[in-house]
């Protein structure tokens, strides 16, 4: 299986237009997250959000639906059922969108490395912009990771969503290989 690196810095060294830079400033300072709380990682987020670590001072906050969110935060391991829902959620998000993998399980399966039902590597299926390693990462690590994400967005390096569009065939093949079918049923607009 060929692995394409996401953050391949090609020769487009800051080729952004001025309005893209302004947009990136706004997007870096207002990160709304959809927490896809599949695993145990969710328990680290309430302390990150509330008084002790206060993620809102960096402009971050939880959002209720994927449509409103900028960041899909995947906290913990993925089974084949949750992977399907994550792909649906990701495709519902609006366009400058980022994926953050949270915890060891999204990197290499973590302690579930030999399970038959978990997905070992998230970036075979979705373009991950940033990993926060740890089992579990403490709120300090989470804040540090988001600090990195903010500076990546400011510099225009968090281009996973463009990468997903350009290499959709590769991602789609991997998704189909693991799930059998990926079919978004829209029962309201048929």
């Amino acid at each position, binding site marked *: 299986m060929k692995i394409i690196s996401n953050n391949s810095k090609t020769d487009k060294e800051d080729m952004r237009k001025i309005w893209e830079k*302004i*947009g990136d400033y*706004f*997007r870096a*300072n*207002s990160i709304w997250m959809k927490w896809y709380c599949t695993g145990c990682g969710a328990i680290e987020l309430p302390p990150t959000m*509330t*008084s002790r670590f*206060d993620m*809102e*001072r*960096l*402009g971050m906050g*939880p*959002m*209720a*639906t*994927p*449509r*409103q*969110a*900028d960041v899909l935060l995947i906290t913990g391991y993925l089974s084949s059922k949750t992977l399907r829902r994550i792909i649906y959620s990701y495709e519902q*998000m*609006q*366009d*400058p969108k980022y994926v953050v993998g949270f915890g060891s399980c999204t990197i290499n399966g973590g302690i579930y490395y030999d399970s038959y039902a978990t997905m070992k590597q998230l970036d075979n299926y979705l373009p991950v912009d940033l990993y926060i390693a740890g089992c579990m990462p403490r709120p300090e690590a989470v804040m540090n990771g988001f600090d990195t994400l903010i500076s990546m967005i400011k510099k225009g390096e968090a281009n996973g969503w463009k990468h997903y569009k350009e290499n959709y065939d590769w991602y789609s093949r991997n998704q189909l290989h693991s799930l059998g079918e990926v079919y978004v049923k829209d029962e*309201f*607009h048929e």
Partner: protein
Amino acid sequence: MNIMNFIYAFLLLVFVFLFQTSITGINRKVMARLQRRRGPKWYQQFIDIFKAMSKSSTTHGWIFDFGVIMALGGIMATTILIPIGPFKAFADVDNIFIVSYLLAVGMLGMAMSASGSGNPWASIGVSRALTNMLAYDVPFMVLIVSFIYAFKTSSLSGFAALQQGAGILGWNFFRFPLGGIVALICLQGMLGKKPFDSFIAPAEIASGPMVEYGGRHLGMLFLLHEFSTFIEVSIIVHIFFGGGATPLEFMVKYALLYTFMNIISGVFPRFKIDQAVKFYYKVPLALAFIQGLIIIFTGLGVS
């Protein structure tokens, strides 16, 4: 009515956007301090709105798109009728009935658009929002009608002018304390703050009517929310807190009242929608009727 009125109206809209969005940002900071957090930057709300505007957006059919534009247009059309202290873009149209009817255009546009998205959460949110509207509007209208009877005027600046010149004790809030309390409870419902925010309820019905909005649509809804907040708080400031002899006085009163409502919102849990309706039809409605009867039969407070 000439071209200058429309230029004033445009300036008023720009001013209201800058003013109300700053106040919202400052209030996010106040709320954070209430919860012992540092809180976001005071201009965070601007960043949020511009960011939402800078994202791409999807559509769910033309009713979805048209409803958002209709809602925003209706609310903006209402905003230009609101006087800021003595300043008015259009003379003699700041009537409470015109304001409440035009406000309904915005609310119904929002309801239409949210239903057009086809998401069940949106339908539940819209039905709760309209039920909530029915709940707070009845006591509020009872109160307003008795005020119109007492003062023989229905214009916002007319109400404000009648209260000026007698100091703080001339405000309707102190001359009619029962009515003032009812008005503040109704304002809390109008703003959709806790305990009457069951139609947003992010953890329960996934932010209700806003569930399918993203990107530019969501940015427009944020704008709409700022404008409608301005209208609702301004109505109460004009009718109960004496408006303002100068625009600055109005702005200070406005900011203090909005912050007060927000602090109340910060310490309350949420009512279920049936509890909210029962509450409105019990306490505020009874108080509004008592206040109305006092005004009509004794004239107490009406100078």
